[in-house]
């Protein structure tokens, strides 16, 4: 799950949580230029794929922009 409120999501039972940017735009940043924003989004989704590929014993919060 990508959420700007990582700890809330985790507290409420989500097992793989990736930190999003902000509530109205979890997967991007309008203050960046188009290229920077797109790059951020790709890194965020790549980080999500990493979380999906990671074995977990218990819930974890992943840094949103891990490459």
């Amino acid at each position, binding site marked *: *799950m*990508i*959420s*700007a*409120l990582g700890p809330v*999501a985790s*507290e*409420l*039972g*989500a*097992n*793989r949580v990736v930190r*999003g940017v902000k*509530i*109205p*735009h*979890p*997967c*991007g940043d*309008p203050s960046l230029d188009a290229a920077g924003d*797109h790059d951020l*989004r*790709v890194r*965020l*989704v*790549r980080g*999500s*794929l990493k979380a*999906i*590929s*990671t*074995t*977990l*014993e*218990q*819930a*974890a919060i992943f840094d949103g922009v891990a490459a």
Partner: protein
Amino acid sequence: MPETLGRLARFALRLGRSETIGSPAVEGFYGRGVRKTQLLDRPAAERALDMLSARLAGTPFISELVLPPVERSTPAPAVKNIGRARIAIITTGGIVPKGNPDKLKQSNSTEWRTYPIEGLDSLEAGKYESIHAGYDTSAANANPNYVVPLDALRELEHAHAVGSVYSRYYVTVGVGTAVTESRRIGREIAADLRANGVDAVILTAT
């Protein structure tokens, strides 16, 4: 047993006479989660601060509103070969085709929908909108990929970081959604994912 039956009988008489019945804690019956509005002599802010003080001091207090318990689940096994996996996007951020053709509710959701994304490299501004009543939707309306990151996932699909992107995305609106409805929506979506061979999902929340 005789004592309990006596209490039940006296209680039944009070119900029959339409007498005022107090809370489960006072009267001794099993609560049903029914809420009754009461006027109390101290304002809510003071009562809340007393509870917070007690919590910080580690002393007992009684919450006026009991939240449903969180059900934790065991983390699903990791996807072994993500480069071959079919990934779907789900969002609770309320992104729908412009005009909200299925009239999804803007809060207190009871439904979910899927919309086709086959052949799309991103969600085009102007063709989609956010109908979610719980956040400022201007950024998402200007770029729906902020909530449904299709452009990024498609790029990763082309780079073989995933096997494929499922041909539809899933949407509901996650504000004021009753826990029971959320559970049902989740179970139904999970069944649909399994039926369509989806291996993993990215769920975005707003």
